[in-house]
């Protein structure tokens, strides 16, 4: 049996699955139910001076039959008193001493930071997460992403917290920046023990076309909110990886953003996360999703021979390369399995209109279109649109050219293969 224990900057949990700071971690009762369901850790719904929320807070993208493929919210931090929250936190830790409880905080003055850090430690929290990420409401008041977008402020507040904290401190980063790296480095410079990312992405989820107002509509107006859920995963994966492979960055990462199952979680781990946090998928389907996350992860590790989570952390980072260092002479072409093909011609229209005009109707009138391999650029588009599993396979071809990169070609003139694809369409 592989060991699922996870260690993120000294915060130990029985598995790498944490609830992100959000409605699923609003109260002690909820977190205890989540731990019973199998979650390894929970980042408490951000604590600060209690706020008042608006009614009508969430919006979803319902895309081709899938409800809430993307999700957004205009909710603020906790609306419950610090008193009640810390009392419940202590109770959770008393009943679940082995599970990780992380106190998420967002306040303004140094005095306030000192107080909430102390109260978190007194309540028995295993770590602290600084919410420098909320992209709506709180940032208008100079907190949340307003802090996360300014490396100097980020570093300074982090160092305040470190001054008062005897437990690990994670800085939760906002994705609403051009390049995530300087922000991770600022947290590190401030003394953070780790970072967590991403928080939500500034967004308008849609427009109510009758009221002509952004959604979610509050009465007759709407505001920008924070985007999350499955749709944001690629952005989150990139940001996690960008930090993980930066030579100057060397503190642990807790990965967040669009995790829906064990496979998504392993992708975050492979790109450098020591633990993963989940919010939206739990909001949509409940705490019970963790059961299969644990089971799937265990099976995957057993199959692949991994014994600990640490062995997988950052496993895919060495293969994350600059474009200029990819093998420009690698060549693949699409091959269609006529046995599997159902004749929908989606590959053909996609290739004709969206790629390189090299899939054609079957010259013998058969069901299956044919690929002109001499023109196929190996772009993968047909393979992506084909509805039949394993019907189109991108197959490597040996073109006789030695492996080389664009950068090598530019610096030392290595030989690169001729171009392919729709050159018959070139205008004179």
């Amino acid at each position, binding site marked *: 049996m592989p060991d699922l224990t996870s260690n993120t900057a000294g915060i130990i949990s029985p598995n790498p699955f944490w609830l992100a700071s959000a409605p699923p971690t609003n109260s002690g009762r909820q977190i205890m139910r989540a731990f019973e369901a199998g979650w390894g850790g929970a980042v408490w719904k951000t604590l600060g001076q209690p706020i008042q929320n608006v009614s009508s807070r969430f919006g979803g993208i319902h895309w*081709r*039959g899938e409800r809430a493929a993307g999700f957004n919210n205009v909710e603020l931090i906790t609306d419950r008193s610090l008193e009640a929250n810390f009392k419940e936190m202590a109770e959770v830790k008393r009943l679940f001493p082995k599970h990780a409880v992380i106190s998420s905080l967002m306040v303004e003055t140094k005095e306030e930071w000192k107080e909430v850090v102390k109260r978190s430690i007194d309540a028995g929290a295993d770590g602290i997460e600084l919410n420098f990420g909320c992209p709506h409401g709180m940032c208008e008041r100079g907190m949340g992403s307003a802090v996360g977008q300014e490396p100097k402020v980020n570093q300074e507040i982090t160092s305040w917290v470190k001054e008062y904290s005897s437990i690990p401190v994670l800085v939760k980063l906002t994705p609403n920046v051009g390049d995530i790296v300087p922000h991770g480095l600022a947290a590190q410079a401030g003394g953070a023990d780790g970072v967590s990312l991403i928080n939500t992405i500034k967004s308008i989820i849609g427009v109510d076309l009758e009221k002509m107002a952004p959604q979610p509509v509050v009465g007759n107006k709407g505001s920008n909110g924070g985007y999350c859920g499955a749709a944001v995963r690629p952005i989150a994966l990139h940001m996690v990886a960008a930090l993980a492979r930066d030579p100057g960055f060397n503190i642990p990462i807790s990965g967040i953003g669009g995790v829906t199952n064990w496979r998504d979680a392993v992708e975050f781990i492979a790109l450098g996360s020591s633990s993963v946090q989940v919010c939206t998928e739990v909001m949509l389907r409940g705490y019970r999703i963790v059961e299969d996350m644990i089971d799937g992860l265990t099976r995957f590790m057993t199959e692949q021979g991994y014994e600990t989570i640490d062995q997988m952390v950052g496993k895919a980072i060495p293969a994350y390369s600059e474009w200029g260092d990819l093998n420009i002479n690698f060549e693949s072409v699409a091959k269609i399995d006529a046995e599997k*093909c159902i*004749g*929908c*011609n989606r590959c*053909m229209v996609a290739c004709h209109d969206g790629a390189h005009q090299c899939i054609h109707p079957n010259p013998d009138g058969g*069901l299956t279109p044919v690929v002109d391999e001499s023109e196929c650029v190996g772009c993968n588009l047909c393979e992506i649109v084909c509805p*039949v599993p394993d019907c189109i396979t991108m197959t490597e071809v040996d073109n006789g050219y030695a492996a080389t990169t664009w950068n090598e070609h530019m610096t030392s003139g290595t030989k690169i293969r001729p171009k392919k694809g729709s050159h018959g369409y070139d205008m004179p």
Partner: protein
Amino acid sequence: MNQKLPANRAELVFEDFKKPYSEQQARAEANRCLYCYDAPCIQACPTEIDIPTFIRRIANENVEGAAKTIFDSNILGMSCARVCPVETLCVGSCVYNHMDASPIQIGKLQRYATDAAFDAGLSFYEAGEDTGKSVVCIGGGPASLAAAHRLRRFGHKVTIIEKDHYLGGLNTTGIASYKMKADRSLTEVEWLMSIGGIEVRSGISVPDQMSWADLQAEFDAIFVGFGLGEDSLLSLEGADSKGIMGAVDFIAKMKLGMVDLSSVQHAIVIGGGNTALDAVRELKGLGIDNVTLAYRGGEAQMSGYAHEWSEAKREGVSASWRSQPLAFIHNNGKLTGVEFQLMDENKKAIDGQTKTLNADLVLLAIGQGKLGALTSGLTGIEVEKGKIVTDAHGATGAKGVYAGGDCRNGGKEVVNAVAEGDQAAQAMHTFIMGGGSCRT
């Protein structure tokens, strides 16, 4: 034109065999469609409805647009959605059949979109600018209705001549009630007529009550869409016993009014085609316990659709294969049974082998007469095995006379009648606008 049906009709006991979709179900099914390119489902639809486009419009919450896409190709798209044998047409050719996945329920999606348009009171089309030309459609069935609507959109003055009272042809009087009831067909007729300017003369049979010469004198072009004739009957011993009817005749009576089946315990339907399969399921639905299909061939030799027969079996219909009627047995003129000659694999009689089944009702579903001969008064027209011969566009050998539907194809489906009516209308338009006329 009063098209009101009596309040009490036997067919009202039937419920839809294929239930309508809710909005959610329709959206989910629409999202499953692959939006194929050069889609095989379109090729399988005789009216060539742009199926991927209308389905995508449902998925995109443009249900009215979806309905418009359907009606653009098939003005009877609402009834076709219910009555088409989709299993052998569009749905049967959906690419999902090549995968181990259930094909898209195109008929149910088509029903969803067209019903929504009806409910919203959208009729989409207006009559074209008056051309000063005048055309006539003979028969008020699907073929003529499709032709009439198209011709009206071109701006011609259109007249429909129907021998009976109700319009819609077999769509009103023949369709199995678990697919569509008569009132729905009449709703469609009314919807179609709302384009305005289509005159209906009912109760007139051509050529008996209005001659070809009269028609040629009054109109610039003629569309013949009078379908098929009465049920074929059997001239066997006892054939005039009480309790023997043509199946199409019986079905029409059940759909348009009441039938008294209180004394019927055993019913036999003779035939192996789709009318026979509809009839056995209808008798079951009307509450008759013992319903038997008697066919002179074996199960695999039936021309009726396999999917319909498997439903009939599931509903408890029994079969007597390789059974050819020899004589009707009766008691003082009242039917009590049928004696059958047993047949071999090649539908040849096996000497000396017969059997008798009890029956107090027999429906004959062995075909309908062909009406081509009614056109003998038209010079140049050609009739083959009772079917009116036309070119690929529906033109007969008689100048300005076109034909479509069952009278031309020998009896196919509503959708074929619509396709042929529409196509002929386009050819008629070209003919008239090019200065042609059948006027003598």
